[in-house]
Each structure stands twice: as structure tokens, then as C-alpha cells.
């Protein structure tokens, strides 16, 4: 064994290691190393592929299959062709829930990004009690959605909630939080921001810490003040983080379900009902699995398009 290795080492000494050297080295070194790598890759990748195929792709394919059927759990599925798709394009509720969900997303995501960016810059600059503040703001991310939903529901109680009582003290009248579509959505948006702010703040902090200080030096030399430095140095430098945050946020918001369920239950009169809520009601309450699957496919298309759009737009921007 040892002889063989030193023989290979001898071969290597003559070549310089490069970033892509590994693959080449494996080829150079001989078939034994190649098999070794392959075995490792296989042992790691195979279970992973099997897992995703079983637990993600098989259910999705099953769902897509059921789009063309009428299935109600209690009887075998019956083929109905494109009826579900047709229904989808004529369903007024579909329009409403897609609009609701997209509205919440479009309002929340930019707001969240801006707020968490501002907060993270503030925390970045803070020298006193930075750890404590950082931790407190992040800790809200660790509450569970059910607990957060219940808490916010009680806080926003129009008659008795803490928020209205507080507004009353300030002299502003009571706000009809959960009985008005606009305010109910505002409450839902606030809940989302409250929960995610800490998480995105930490991600931005990480990005901020990784900005090369030399860039700031260069800007200072050019005479840039703090604000200019922020816009011309910081923002471009943390762009990858912003893109990441924005994509993750959009995906999460489009999938809102239990987040709103407890707070508003989709009310008042379905004005905060999201796509997933409608889908689950159809699938479980109405036992209309085929149509529910249609909606889940539509949701996936929307999420996919949204991610693609964001990626293309950011690519276009950086060029």
C-alpha cells in the first residue's frame, strides 16, 4: 500500500495543484482513486436521490396525476379529463385567493427587506450591547407560528386587545383590526414581519461583516460620505444576500397557510384567505382532491415563475 501511494505522490510533485486539480488528479492518479471518489459520491448521493424521489417527487407526480380525476378518498378515482382545469379558469374564488396571497407577498417582501436591512445596519454599527440587542431581535423568529398566531389574535382583538387599548391611550381611535379586510391583512403582514425580521437581520449582518473594508477605504478617499458609502459600496456588496433573502421570502409568503389560519381564519369574509388555505379546504373539507391538486400545481407554477423572474431581474441589473 505505502509503496503505491509514494509512487503516486512522486507523480504529483511535478504538477502544480490547481482549483480544478482534484478531478484531473483523480484521473492522473489512476483508476483506484477514481473508484474511490465514485464510491463516495454514490454512497452519499444515492440515498439522497432516493429520499427526494420518494418523499417529494412521487407525491407531486401523484398529485399531477390526480388533476385529471375526481377523487374523494372514499371511492376509487374516476377519470374526468380536463374538467378540473376548466373549473380552475372559471372559479372566482381562485382569483380572489391568488390576489390575496400575491398582495400579501408583494407588500411584505420589500417592506421586510428594507426593514431588516435598516435594522441590520443599525446593529452592525452599534457598539454597546450589540449581542443582547441582536439576540432579542432574533429570538422572535424562534416562536412557533401557532403561538405567534394566538398571541397576535388576542393582541389585535378590536374590543379588548392590547393594541387598540394602546392606540386609545395615544388618542387614536380603535382600529377594526380583524373585522376589516384591509386591517386584517395589515395584521397578517405585521405578524409575518415580526417573525421574520430577526432571521433576515442576521443574514444581512453576515453579509455586512463580509464586505471588504478596503472598499470603504477607497470610497472615503474618493470623498464619499456615510450615506453615499451605504448606497454605492454596501448595497452592491451585499446584493447576493439581498437576492437570497428576497427569493426565500417570496417563496415563504406564497406558501402562507398556518401563518394566517389562526390569526384570521381567512376572514373577514375570505379577504385574507390564501391559496394554500383554499387548497386544503378543497382537498379535505370538500374531498375534491383532483381540483385541490390543480390548485397546488398552479401555486407551484406561480412560485417557480416568481423565482425565475427575480433571478433574471437581478442578473439583468448586475449587467
Amino acid at each position, binding site marked *: *500500500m505505502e509503496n503505491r501511494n509514494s509512487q503516486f505522490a512522486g507523480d504529483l510533485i511535478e504538477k502544480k495543484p490547481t482549483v480544478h486539480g482534484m478531478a484531473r488528479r483523480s484521473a492522473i492518479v489512476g483508476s483506484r482513486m477514481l*473508484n*474511490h471518489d465514485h*464510491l*463516495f459520491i454514490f*454512497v452519499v448521493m444515492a440515498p439522497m436521490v432516493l429520499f427526494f424521489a420518494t418523499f417529494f417527487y412521487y407525491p407531486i407526480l401523484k398529485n399531477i396525476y390526480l388533476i385529471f380525476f375526481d377523487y*374523494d*378518498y*372514499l*371511492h376509487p378515482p374516476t377519470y374526468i379529463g380536463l374538467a378540473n382545469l376548466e373549473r380552475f379558469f372559471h372559479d372566482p374564488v381562485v382569483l380572489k385567493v391568488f390576489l390575496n396571497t400575491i398582495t400579501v407577498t408583494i407588500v411584505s417582501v420589500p417592506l421586510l427587506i428594507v426593514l431588516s436591512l435598516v435594522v441590520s445596519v443599525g446593529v452592525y454599527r452599534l457598539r454597546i450591547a450589540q449581542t443582547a440587542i441582536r439576540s432579542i431581535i432574533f429570538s422572535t423568529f424562534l416562536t412557533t407560528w401557532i403561538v405567534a398566531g394566538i398571541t397576535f*389574535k*388576542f393582541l389585535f*382583538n*378590536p*374590543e*379588548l386587545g392590547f393594541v387598540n387599548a394602546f392606540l386609545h391611550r395615544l388618542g387614536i381611535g380603535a382600529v*377594526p*383590526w*380583524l*373585522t376589516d379586510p384591509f386591517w386584517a391583512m395589515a395584521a397578517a403582514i405585521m405578524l409575518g414581519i415580526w417573525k421574520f425580521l430577526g432571521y433576515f437581520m442576521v443574514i444581512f449582518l453576515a453579509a455586512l461583516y463580509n464586505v471588504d473594508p478596503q472598499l470603504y477605504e477607497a470610497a472615503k478617499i474618493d470623498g464619499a460620505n456615510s450615506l453615499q458609502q451605504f448606497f454605492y459600496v454596501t448595497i452592491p456588496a451585499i446584493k447576493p444576500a439581498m437576492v437570497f433573502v428576497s427569493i426565500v421570502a417570496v417563496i415563504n409568503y406564497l406558501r402562507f397557510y398556518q401563518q394566517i*389560519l*389562526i390569526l*384570521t*381564519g381567512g*376572514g*373577514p*369574509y*375570505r379577504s385574507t384567505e390564501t391559496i394554500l388555505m383554499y387548497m386544503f*379546504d*378543497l382537498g*379535505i*373539507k*370538500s*374531498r375534491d382532491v383532483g381540483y385541490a391538486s390543480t390548485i397546488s400545481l398552479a401555486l407551484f407554477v406561480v412560485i417557480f415563475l416568481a423565482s425565475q423572474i427575480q433571478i433574471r431581474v437581478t442578473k439583468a441589473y448586475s449587467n
Partner: protein
Amino acid sequence: MIKTRMVALVLALMLLTWGVLWAGGGQEPTANEDGGFTLRIALSGVGQFEAQIAAFEKLNPKANVEVIDVPWGVEAGRDLRERQLLMISSGDIPDIGAMIWGKEFFREGVIMDLTDDIKKWEEFDGFTAGMLERMTYNNRIYAATIYPCAVMLHYNKDILAQIGRAEPPKTMAELADIGAKIDAAGVRAPNGNKVYAMVFEGGNWHTDCFFWANGGEQMTKDYSKTLIDSPESIGAFRWMQNMVKNGYAPKPDGTYDQLWLNNQVAFFAVGAWEEKPSRDAGLNFGAVPIPVGQTGKNYASMGGTELAIFKASTHKQEAMEFMRLFYRKDLQLTAVTEGKTTLPISKPLFDDPDFQDYWTSQNNLDYYMAQKKQWESTKYNFLEAPFVYPEASKIYASALERVLVKLEDPEKIMKEAAEVINKGIAQKMNVKK
């Protein structure tokens, strides 16, 4: 060398995983050679079933009761129903299922028809008309109701005293009148907040008692068409809306009993489960049956849980034996006196001396006599969970919200809703046989 070690490790891991999988679960066969068997029950909250399970196992030493205990869910019994659907669709069917909206299952033909058996039970006479309606579909009996309940009018004695009234209202007109008096007097709660005459909380299962008493009607007798857009129904909706418009009731917002527990509401239509929280909150309260409307009738939604036997079960006799345990007086009495439940399950027991003595000792005999009275006038709330076209419940709930919260014209809203509901029901009824 490392290669073989690694391969061995991977194989060992796979074996370990497989071992864990096998050790983790497993369904036991439901019938053993020695005559023993397993009775599988899908329910929610085994605490309410423990006494009966223990009694069953005592009577059948060779039997084993396996419980599939599912949480109640955000809406009453929703998770339980979901689990039962899942189990049926995957072929893993239990023997007994507890269900809130059994008619859906009865209609689909997955439940055993027990008409001939149940009619012969001793306990049969103890079933009220309302309970029987819940147990029946298409004139066949499929289940037995356990834990029946109905809302009644809870009233706050202190608030009534403040406007000089000792007696709760007997009619809807009186109730509206009291609303006007409270409003005029500007009554305030101890915490300084405004006092309302009533609240429309709890969803339509709670508030439909006002709808019915004022002349409203949900469905035709055969449940094929909705009547929420009939002139009488619109009138009832207007009555309810006026209570909100006049400021006698706040807009419903999902906060359920919070205003009531804060001494801010004179009347609350809710069930006997509210007694303990009300006592704990220090309220001075009582309960009477729902006031009657201009027709001289009052109705409350009949609530409860049914036990049904799935068709696939091979233990029909044992299952029925288990179900009948719920009607045993001794078990019902201990459940009530130990505070596990608040109500008896068989109506005749309301007049039973042991129960009456207990309630007298607790100073709430009148309260439970009101509940007994309410059991005599109940209705099946179809729109709460329709067994045909389930979307109707969301459509109706949403329409009701628009009437009571957005304060839109009931006639316009209900006509729209009725149209959609009728269309949906017609469609579904065409498809199914």
C-alpha cells in the same frame, strides 16, 4: 482496506435503518387465537373515553382497545375527520369512528347501517328527536350520539339588574328591547368598557338560533335547496343586522367569549361548557332556553358526537357493546360529578334524582334544567358542515360575515350566496347516486 470498511459501514447502516423501521411500528392483528381481539377506535381526546374503555376491557378481559387519538383541530373535529378519511383511503380502517358530521360518511356508504339493532336498544327512548336526526341519513340509523349539547341563552344578572330587570327575556322582541334599554342607559362594565346586549360569536352554529327564532330557514326538508334567500330568512338576517347597526351587539371578530367573561355582554348564546369559565371569571349569571320569535318557537343547533361503525369492521357486536357503555347511568354520573363532562348523555337522566341532587348541591339546577328544555327544540345545522357540497358552509359563513360585519344588504348578499349554493348542491346531487 478503507474501501471495504466503508462498504461494511454502509451495509451496517442500512441494516440498522431497516431494523429501526421494523422495530418502530407495526399493526397488530385484530384477532388472536385465544378469542381475544382488538377494537380500534378513532377519536379525539381519549380522556372522554377512558371510563368506557376501562369498562369495556373489564367486561371483555380478552379484548384490547386500540385508540387513534387525534387532536380536535382548529375547527371542531376537523383533524379527526381528516385522519378518518386518510385511514379509509389507505385501507387502514378502524372499527369505530367518532364523528361530528357523520351524515357525510353515512351518505358515502362506508358506515354500517344499524337501524334494526339500535331500534331494539333499551336506550332508544332516551334519544331526542334532535339526536336521532344526527344519527340518521335517508331514514336509516347509522350511529349513536354521545355528548349531545345545545346552546342556550346565558345572561348576566348584574347587567340586567343595572337596567332594573330581574328576569331574562322570553321573546326576541324583549331581547331587542333590553338592547335598547342598555344602550340608552349607557351601562358600563366594571372595567369601564361599553356593555353590549349580546354578541354574535362562535360562528353560525352558535348564532343560527337567532336566525331560526326570527323565522329563518336554512334548507328545504330534503336538503336539496337552500332557503336563506326567502323573505322570512331575510327578515331574520335583518333583525340580527339591526342589533349590530344599533350598537346593541359588536361586530363578530372571532374573540368568542372574551367579552362575556369581561362582564361586557348581557346575553351570550353558548353551551354548558361555558359554565366553569364563567364561574371562574366571577360572573353572576344564569341560563335559560333561547327566547322565542314571532312564531312562538325557538331552536338551537343540535351538537354532539356520534359513534359509528365502519363497514369494513369485523367486530360489529363488540363495537355496539362499546357504544352502549356510554348510556350506562353509573358512568355518566361519575363523569359529571368528577367534572369530566358537564352533561348527561341520555335525556331521561336530567330528571334522575342523583343528577338533580348533584346539581342542587352545586347551585346550578336551573342552569341544567334550561339545557334539558333546549334539547327539546333543536334543529340540525346543515350549513355548518353540509354533507352535500361542503363549500356551502364557507359561502354561508362568508355571507353572514358580510351581513353582520360589513353590514351589506342581506337580501342582495343572501340571494348571491343562495344561487351559488343551489347550483353546487344540484351539481353534486347529479353526480352521486
